[in-house]
């Protein structure tokens, strides 16, 4: 049914919008800026900061542009003296309960409250300082995020992100009046409560009340130690999005310039995560095939669906919220851990380096990847990944170094581990891991080359929370006869907010799907919690479209066709002592 159109005027400019639009939507349509703070396009409307108040003719009180639906004939003023006075007062009040030592702040320069303060020229301290002493002590107990209540503006974006988008609910509002605050369960340190480290709160916090736990200083330290050989792996998501922080648009030269920048920062070697993602896909695919075989041989053995585990926050989510899924998770290491493992074994060997002298760093769009740096690998006691930094942290390092990326001469990856397939790029977008697995699976099971039509599975792309597809093989290789004409059902969970809904739909062992990919972040890694701020579903979609085009441009489309990968399997992974290297310890 077509929605009816509503006409109104804003600052005497006539505008017509669809029924159900808000005043803010209507203002956007005529390119009129109304300041907001608690509003975020990805979240439910809250209407609690009151920064977006506007004057509605005939109304004594001001109304919030973000929450008020338009009605026919509405007359709105967004810049009357009444509005300006109220808005300025509100910003002053917000600053009075905010730790406003901006120069020392992690978000200095990228803070919505700071912008508002500068827009409204908040000069003298009109009001009393209300920052509570106990709030000045930030909670840095978590591996991934830091919560500083003295910088909280009570917009509750984190609460809505964590509960509504992620279905986690680490944060809630407690107490009322002057004691009201955003708190964890009973105010416990984040490490002691349920938090999946996804960092989605940090990318939606308007200030620095929630930030990723910065590790870039440690990385600088490692670089400056001459005896250390520091290897960094970058992911396509980081390269596609980092320009948003550094002020350039991604193009075909960006990758090689970012490599050049990383080398200038002092990294001894730069590799692409895609190579390890290819290994991951092959591992995942073979594990899945073995599970299928197992399920076929013993129907009572309910080993399916096979569930991916590469999203590190997902493992934590499962542990607390969906324990029944735990036994279904893939036992393969994530591509980041595979990177760490191979660098400290195969690569060390090839380059005659002592693994103890190697520092592995991943730069990812992910804050939860920081928890992977704590997994030490027995028996040597070496960690796979020593430091994990986010896109935002890398951008900061590049800014600190004074490098102008766009003027750099292109450079190349470490030749040993540089090749990657288009499939590996896809794994960074929701549904992409499944697409990549289908490409490899098809060729492994049928023995025939993949039909090019199957390179794009649109059902697995896009913004839906739960996506699915069915594959059938009419021809199969010897040994896989049981898969002939069998419907193999794939499901993709796009954001942890949909995971419980999906898994609780079926009782244990009755889930009809065979393969389930879960990414806790909306859009997959490309929408990770460590990506540039601001973020929105709209932006994530734009970033993902670059990933899809990178796949289309790639020469090698399938993970198992990566030449170097086959070499590593031949030379290293096939050896008896390395059989378990890529399994989770």
């Amino acid at each position, binding site marked *: 049914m077509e929605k009816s159109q509503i006409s109104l005027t804003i600052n005497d400019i006539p505008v017509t919008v669809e029924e159900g639009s808000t005043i803010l939507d209507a203002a956007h349509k005529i390119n009129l800026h109304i300041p907001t703070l608690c509003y975020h396009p990805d979240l439910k409307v809250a209407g609690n900061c009151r920064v977006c108040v506007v004057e509605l003719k005939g109304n004594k009180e001001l109304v919030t542009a973000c929450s008020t639906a338009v009605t026919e004939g509405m007359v709105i003023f967004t810049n009357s003296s009444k509005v300006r006075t109220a808005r300025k007062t509100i910003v002053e009040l917000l600053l009075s309960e905010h730790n406003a030592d901006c120069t020392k702040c992690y978000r200095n320069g990228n803070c919505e409250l700071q912008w508002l303060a500068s827009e409204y020229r908040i000069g003298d301290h009109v009001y*009393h300082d209300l920052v509570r002493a106990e709030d000045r002590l930030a909670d840095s107990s978590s591996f991934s995020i830091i919560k500083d209540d003295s910088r909280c*503006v009570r917009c509750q974006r984190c609460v809505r992100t964590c509960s509504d988008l992620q279905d986690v609910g680490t944060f809630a509002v407690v107490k009322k009046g002057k004691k009201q605050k955003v708190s964890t369960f009973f105010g416990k340190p984040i490490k002691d409560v349920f938090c999946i480290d996804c960092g989605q709160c940090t990318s939606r916090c308007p200030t620095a009340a929630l930030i990723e736990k910065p590790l870039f200083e440690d990385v600088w330290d490692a670089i400056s130690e001459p005896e250390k050989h520091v290897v960094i792996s970058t992911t396509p998501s980081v390269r596609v999005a980092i320009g948003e922080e550094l002020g350039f648009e991604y193009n075909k030269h960006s990758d090689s310039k970012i490599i050049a920048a990383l080398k200038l920062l002092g990294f001894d070697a730069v590799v692409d995560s895609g190579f390890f993602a290819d290994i991951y896909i092959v591992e995942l695919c073979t594990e899945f095939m073995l599970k299928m075989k197992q399920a076929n041989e013993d129907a009572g053995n309910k080993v399916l669906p096979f569930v991916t585990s590469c999203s590190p926050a997902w493992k934590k989510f499962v542990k607390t919220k969906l324990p029944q899924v735990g036994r279904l998770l893939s036992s393969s290491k994530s591509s980041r851990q595979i990177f760490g493992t191979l660098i400290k074994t195969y690569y060390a060997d090839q380059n005659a380096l002592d693994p103890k002298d190697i520092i592995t760093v991943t730069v990812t769009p992910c804050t939860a990847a920081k928890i992977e740096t704590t997994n030490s690998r027995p028996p040597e006691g070496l960690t796979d990944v020593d430091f994990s930094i986010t896109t935002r942290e890398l951008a900061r390092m590049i800014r600190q170094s004074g490098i102008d990326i766009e003027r750099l001469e292109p450079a190349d990856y470490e030749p040993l581990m540089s090749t990657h397939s288009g499939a590996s790029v896809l794994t960074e977008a929701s549904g992409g891991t499944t697409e990549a697995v289908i490409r490899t699976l098809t060729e492994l099971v049928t023995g025939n080359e993949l039909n090019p039509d199957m390179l794009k599975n649109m059902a697995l792309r896009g913004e839906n929370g739960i996506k699915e597809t069915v594959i059938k093989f009419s021809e199969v290789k010897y040994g896989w006869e049981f898969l002939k004409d069998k419907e193999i059902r794939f499901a993709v969970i796009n954001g942890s907010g949909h995971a419980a809904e999906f898994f609780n739909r079926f009782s244990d062992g009755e889930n009809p799907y065979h393969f389930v990919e879960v990414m806790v972040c909306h859009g997959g890694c490309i929408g990770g919690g460590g990506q540039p701020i601001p973020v929105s579903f709209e932006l994530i979609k734009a970033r993902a479209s670059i990933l899809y085009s990178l796949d289309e441009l790639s020469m090698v489309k399938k993970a198992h066709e990566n030449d170097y990968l086959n070499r590593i399997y031949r030379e290293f992974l096939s050896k008896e002592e390395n059989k378990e290297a890529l399994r989770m310890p």
Partner: protein
Amino acid sequence: MESPNQKRIDLIFSNYTSSKYKVLERTLQRPPDELISELMDSGLKGRGNVGFPTGMKWKFARREDAGTKYVICNANESETGTFKDREILELVPRKVLSGMAICGYCIGSKKGIIYLRHEYSYLKEHLQNEISIFQEFVKQFNHDFTIEIFSGSGSYVSGEESSLIESIEGFRAEPRNKPPFPVIKGLYGCPTVVNNVETFATAQVIFRIGAEEFLKLGTSYSSGSKLFSISGDTKNPGIHELELGTTIEDVVKEFGDKNIKSVQVGGASGYCIPQKLFAETVIGYEGLTTGGSMIFFNNSRSMYKVLHEYLRFFAEESCGLCTPCRVGTQQLLLGIEAVKRGEMPVGYIDVLKKLALSMKISSKCGLGQSVANPFISILDNFKEEILY
């Protein structure tokens, strides 16, 4: 002991022993539209602090096409200085239950909920008994309507209708964005009428005596009578039913102690009326709309302390959701303290006044919007007391 000065009304608390739900029985035989227009004719306005026309509210809810609708009785009586709803529930609960049932009949709702202030939990058993008896009668009248008690979660803001609904749904008592108003989208998204205890009791009275009789009381703009909770410097504290449209002067003459210098009408969120305005201030929707709280202050009282106490109350009871109310209440409190101590110049009071006015137009609900009422009315009339 009573002076004959003021006409006493006895509508709310009368006839309470004999009630066999005759009024309800009779009323349920009339068509709903007729009842709603009688209610509109009676000019009944909500007996809380806002004063929205009750008939109109019911009409809006009736117009909504929905399978489930709710009738909620707001018994969260939390405005400072009011205690009349407690008395109504204790003495004439049948009037309230009847009022709710009639409302349910008019708007097409089968479900009533009494949101009972937590501090009134001792009334629960009594009310529950009354509800069981009521339920029997309703069955006899072939009317499908059940009433449940919901024990309030204990905050001032739960008295605000959308916060009250949030509270019943199991969330923090915090106001919703309006529109949509509860009559359109209320409890669990269904059309919901939220009325005060006294409003339901008065509705029952109107259907008993008829709109015409009710209109004989009060003024053309403020029809009928209303309960007042009188406290403070008075020899005769308690609940008194008075006609609307009287002046503060009349009330003070009758109830006040000697040397009354001001009356706080409407509790913490109401207005302070100084002596010089007693004669010209009318209690009613044309003058001061009030939920019925009247607190008298005589010459011995410090208005600074009064204001300070109200601000302390607001800083504590603001739900903290919206910026102007959460931060503004704290700043007003700290502000008057600082001026009093001489840490801030006298002129700072003007900054605070501007702040209060901004809060009035930009807060999310009635709580933050009404902080300016006591603040400005006390400040304007007792400036010296506040400053020095």
